[in-house]
């Protein structure tokens, strides 16, 4: 096939095409090239790179020679898109592998039940205090954010539609979404410095900081779910002589409850891993502290990971991985719960 008869052929329905299974032929050739570079001492990563490059470039090149430029471009892009996906998965798998492998090595019953109180040298310490702190601080954030978030969403969807206050609130929720997490921490710190005293770092402060980050996500997700409840149903309830507030509490909220709970759980899973605001607002503490209102720092798992890494000792790094696995399991468990809740409460249809 030469370029000359391409124009003549393009007016017909068929033109020169690559043989069937061409991509497999190219793949085998590319793999062989990769294998060869492995033998020549390029290392695994190098070999995979060579093989991948050979495929992504070789296949369109062949198409360019046999078919035409357009087809070649199409195949090049397809190759690039698949490669992008392949490359992006690498860090995820690597990260999960590291967290699980290094984390399980660090975790022991002692690690989960000891605090770091007066632990020196090679003595066994743990993150029990941090785990409790995380649960308390996140719990406080949830207690503050869930009622405010849900009621605000109810205001925006059920009462405020189109009003000036509603528009202002929508805008402010947008602004809140954009607050850098460390600024939320600084806010709580500044607030309690003025209210309680200079340098106050305690559990409640951390909870306030996290709730500032959590409220907008709760508002957003609840709003979306309330919007999904058809107006037909509201009208049906009004027409039965049901007051608005009962319509909302007994009909709208139960209809949307699955989505709302899913959104709330996901927003908890997002703030439970926040580090920067807690570093600033609730500080760090090697000791057990379960009193969120007392003026003394409360340790949390993310801050535990950070401080252990900053120790720059082998033991510190090991503890950091242990903490990472604990945090990872917490986050994944919350995501799983959100997913399960979503399916359980999915609207019932069918007989």
């Amino acid at each position, binding site marked *: 096939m030469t370029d000359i008869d391409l124009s003549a052929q393009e007016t017909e329905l068929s033109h020169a095409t690559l043989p069937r299974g061409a991509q497999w032929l190219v793949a085998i050739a590319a793999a062989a090239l990769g294998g060869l570079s492995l033998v020549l001492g390029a290392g695994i990563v190098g070999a995979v790179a060579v093989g991948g490059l050979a495929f992504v470039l070789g296949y369109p090149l062949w198409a360019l020679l046999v078919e035409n430029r357009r087809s070649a471009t199409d195949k090049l892009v397809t190759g690039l898109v698949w490669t992008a996906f392949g490359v992006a998965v690498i860090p995820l798998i690597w990260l999960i592998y590291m967290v699980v492998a290094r984390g399980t090595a660090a975790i022991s019953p002692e690690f989960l039940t000891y605090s770091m109180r007066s632990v020196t040298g090679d003595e066994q310490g743990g993150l029990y205090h941090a785990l409790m702190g995380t649960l308390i601080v996140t719990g406080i954030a949830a207690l503050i954010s869930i009622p405010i978030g849900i009621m605000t969403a109810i205001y925006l969807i059920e009462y405020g539609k189109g009003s000036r206050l509603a528009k202002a609130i929508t805008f402010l929720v947008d602004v809140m979404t954009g607050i850098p997490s460390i600024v939320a921490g600084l806010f709580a710190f500044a607030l309690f410095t003025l209210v309680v005293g200079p340098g106050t770092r305690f559990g409640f402060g951390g909870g306030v900081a996290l709730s500032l980050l959590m409220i907008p996500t709760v508002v957003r997700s609840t709003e979306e779910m309330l919007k999904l409840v058809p107006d037909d*149903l509201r*009208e049906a309830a009004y*027409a*039965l*002589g049901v007051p608005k507030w*009962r319509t909302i509490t007994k*009909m709208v909220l139960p209809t949307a409850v699955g989505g709302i709970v899913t959104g709330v759980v996901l927003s908890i899973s997002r703030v439970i891993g926040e580090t920067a605001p807690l570093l600033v607002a609730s500080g760090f503490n090697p000791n057990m502290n379960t009193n969120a209102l007392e003026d003394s720092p409360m340790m949390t798992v993310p801050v535990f990971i950070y401080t252990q890494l900053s120790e720059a000792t082998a033991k510190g790094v090991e503890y950091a991985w242990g903490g990472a696995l604990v945090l990872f399991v917490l986050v994944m468990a919350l995501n799983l719960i959100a997913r399960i809740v979503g399916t359980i409460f999915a609207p019932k249809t069918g007989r």
Partner: protein
Amino acid sequence: MSISVKDASIFYGDFKAVEDVTMSIKPKSVTAFIGPSGCGKSTFLRTLNRMHEVIPGAYVEGKISIAGQDIYGSGVDPVAVRRKVGMVFQRPNPFPTMSIYDNVLAGNRLNSKRIKKAEADEIVEDALRGANLWNEVKDRLGKPGMGLSGGQQQRLCIARAIAVQPEVLLMDEPCSALDPISTAAIEDLIHELKSDYTIVIVTHNMQQAARVSDETGFFNLKAAGQPGHLVEFNPTKQMFTNPDNPDTEAYISGRFG
């Protein structure tokens, strides 16, 4: 329970949707509203139980009274009005989270009325029998209402409306989303309900108006963007054989709309 309307005009903010309606609806009869789309017949229907107030900025001028009581008078709670004046909508809208049984009881349950089980059973059975649905669903009262066919869902909605024992039943094109067989079932039901309720029905189907109603109101609008108005209000028989107004005749004989 008779309904009397005097010089009622309906507004959405600055926009006047319906102008100067005056009529008197007889108790325990079926009154149909017909007219081209956009003429304000549904809007007007919704003012009879203050449902139009769901849309912000909507208000009514003039006087609408039910059994002699001005429903827009001061101190009147729209929620209480709606308990007396039930409504059935264009598309069947059973509550998706509730069973058939709970759907029928929704008016009571949502208001947190305490009812004994035996009493509740009785209300459900009466309402479902009243809506000609009892025999079809009595074995699966616990199943979701969404599992019924469209026509059954609409009759469930009627049962739900009559379970709160209203005096008046408003129906906003109740058959427009249904197939002919389900439509016939609903029309039969309307005939039966007439002995207990004052029924007002909006329909775009003139044959339906002729079949089910005792009196008919014809709404029209002079031009797009103009408010709708009531052209003629007469006994259905007269309206379809010998209308007062040439516009009515043109509409009924299918020359426009």
